[in-house]
């Protein structure tokens, strides 16, 4: 397997999927999928609808338990540990954060609270400490707020100060997507899973998202696995691209390599003798 494009920096794998399979009854959603994401690497997952892209995210984050195979996540100093079958909140605490394709914000909470809620795993104060305003509770509250303001300011004017106290439902669609990313960053992840971050955005916003992904990687040192249909985003942000179809990895490598791969063309366009001949 040659990637054609070396990931920058330390190439230690953060995430390893090892012959991962998942079946729903007779339907094989994923079969024997191998995938690696290294530190500070942006990997895109592409594929037609129903290819199993979101299912991969759901297995990694513990929503589904794999039928076979393993998911290993590199806890920074120690060796990689298996996280298959763990509860979602445990996996999130280990350092994997995600966004959702169908937005899942805490709609009736304010923008700032949405982000601060994600600091739960990183804080320890018990309810009585919060009520009595004991030192630990006050310090954690201050830190949570500072972290929330920091990740929100990542988006500049888009999620600027006056919006912080508004309920999340008052945000526009694009801003809801941004808020989901901010909320995920507030869990202090080492691996960020973005499920179609550019869906429903106009061309200018799509361009912004592409730059944002690189920025998150560079400034926060996070490895990113991203599902995206918009090929401008995929081409613009990925170190490596993985193509799935029917739960099987059909191609992997640099963007140009994968985009022109005959199996990928076939998965998207269907089989056509002349196209296949042309690609070869």
């Amino acid at each position, binding site marked *: 397997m040659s990637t054609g494009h070396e990931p920058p920096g330390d190439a230690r794998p953060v995430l390893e999927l090892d012959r991962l399979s998942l079946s729903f009854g007779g339907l094989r959603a994923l079969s024997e999928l191998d995938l690696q994401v290294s530190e500070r690497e942006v990997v895109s997952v592409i594929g037609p609808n129903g290819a199993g892209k979101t299912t991969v995210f759901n297995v990694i984050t513990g929503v589904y338990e794999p039928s076979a195979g393993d998911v290993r996540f590199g806890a920074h100093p120690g060796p990689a540990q298996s996280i298959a079958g763990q509860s979602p909140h445990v996996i999130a605490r280990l350092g994997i954060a995600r966004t959702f394709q*169908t937005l899942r914000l*805490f709609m009736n909470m304010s923008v700032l609270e949405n982000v601060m809620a994600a600091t739960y795993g990183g804080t320890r104060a018990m309810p009585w400490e919060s009520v009595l305003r004991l030192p630990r509770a006050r310090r954690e509250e201050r830190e949570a707020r500072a972290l929330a303001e920091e990740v929100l300011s990542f988006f500049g004017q888009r999620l600027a100060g006056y919006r912080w106290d508004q309920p999340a439902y*008052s945000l526009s669609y694009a801003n809801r997507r941004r808020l989901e990313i901010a909320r995920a960053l507030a869990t202090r992840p080492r691996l960020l899973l973005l499920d179609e971050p550019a869906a429903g955005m106009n061309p200018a916003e799509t361009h912004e998202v592409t730059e944002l992904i690189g920025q998150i990687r560079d400034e926060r040192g996070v490895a990113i696995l991203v599902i995206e249909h918009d090929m401008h985003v995929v081409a613009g942000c990925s170190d490596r691209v993985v193509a799935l179809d029917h739960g099987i990895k059909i191609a992997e490598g640099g963007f140009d390599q994968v985009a022109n791969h005959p199996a990928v063309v076939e998965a998207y366009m269907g089989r056509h003798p002349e196209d296949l001949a042309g690609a070869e």
Partner: protein
Amino acid sequence: MSIDPQGPKVGADEWVARQAHRREYLPSWLGRAQQAGERIGWWPRLAIAGLAGLALPLLGLGGFQLQVGIDALVIALLAVGLNIVVGWAGLLDLGYVAFFGFGAYGYALLSSSQLGANGIHLPYWLSLPIVMIGAAILGLAVGLPSRRLLGDYLAIVTLFLGEAFVEFTNNVAPSKLGGPNGITSIDPIHAFGVSLNTNESYFYLLVIVLVVTMAVLRLLEYSRTGRAWRAVREDPLAAAAMTIPVNRVKLSAFACGAMVAALAGTIFAAQQASVFPTDFDTPILILIYAGLILGGIGSIAGAATGALVVMVIYDGLLRSPAEASILFYGLGLLTLLVKLRPWRRLALVLGATIALGFAAYAIANAISPSVVAGGPQTAGVLGDGLRDWIIVPGNPQTAQTAGNIGFVVLICLAVALVQVKGRWRTILLVPTIYLAAFVWETRLVNEPSITRQLMIGAILIVMMIARPQGLLGQRRVEVAT
């Protein structure tokens, strides 16, 4: 998808959000008072409300009124506790009243001659923590099997558990729990040489306890724990993906709610000096929910206000025909004033209704004076004003029958009113109002036990139409996923 299909909030920019925010306030001067209240901050607001509550007995509140106040404060405390479970964690708990009963029975056993040779008579500073910790454990025990249940399933399972408590106290260990006869001669609250023996003292205690509980919950609401509760209500899957242990957070909400309910139970038992299984049955649960919904689910101040309003109306005003009538006519007039526009239409409907009444009375009187010999049940100035307007047959038997028939016709008219539009609705409104007053005077006013249920129902219906988020609640969007 997560887009709210009806609201104007979708794709909202700053302006739309501000408009939505403006509409969160009550109309006219009430809204201005609300805004002024928000400017001074939450704890001075709560302190002012508490001091006003403490001043009430000084204004001459006594006897029956004081008892109504005490009952209202107990229900308010329960509603504030229920708000944790239902309003914040989003768990529809219909067994909540069992924790209230547990607190009351727990206090009763620890402060009476029921257990042991000489009974147990613990001071309050010892019995309260024991009962509250017990309730928290019971809350966890109930929550443990229920934590994976959602929505309807959770509601029905907890309803069973609530009923199980009533059956338990009715049937198990009658020598200790007293069966249907309950536990009597419970000690008053006593600690550090002080004993609370008067209703005034319990009123003061309840006001203080309610204010302190509300302050504690306010501090909890915007803390790590409160945010986790609300996040779990909004979206459990997203909450789990954001490091929140969903099941544990749900259990902690159950336990906290149970502790507040048990606290209310101990004061209730001590003030009543007796507890019976029927005190903790479904009717109390309905009142707590009515208060919470009226005040606004999710709002601490709303839960307390709503419960106080419901209980004062239900227990205080609706027991005496005169006060119930003022409420009935006042609410009716208010609804017309708010809903009928333009003013010309309002004046027309009111004028026509008044004219219809006098005309009908004059005609009926001309035919046979006995038909109008009854006179309205409503006493006082209001009754005098209605005397020559409303027809009430002299024979009580006839009045009752006429009232029953009138009730059925009234419902038909109300249904017809919804079906027609425009001018016909205005015309139909006149006889409907008159018939409603007729049914009220001949039938409903004499049946306070039924009437007050109907009235609370009517108030909730009006609330649902005028202000679905409740008196002080925040508007919420429901997200179908």
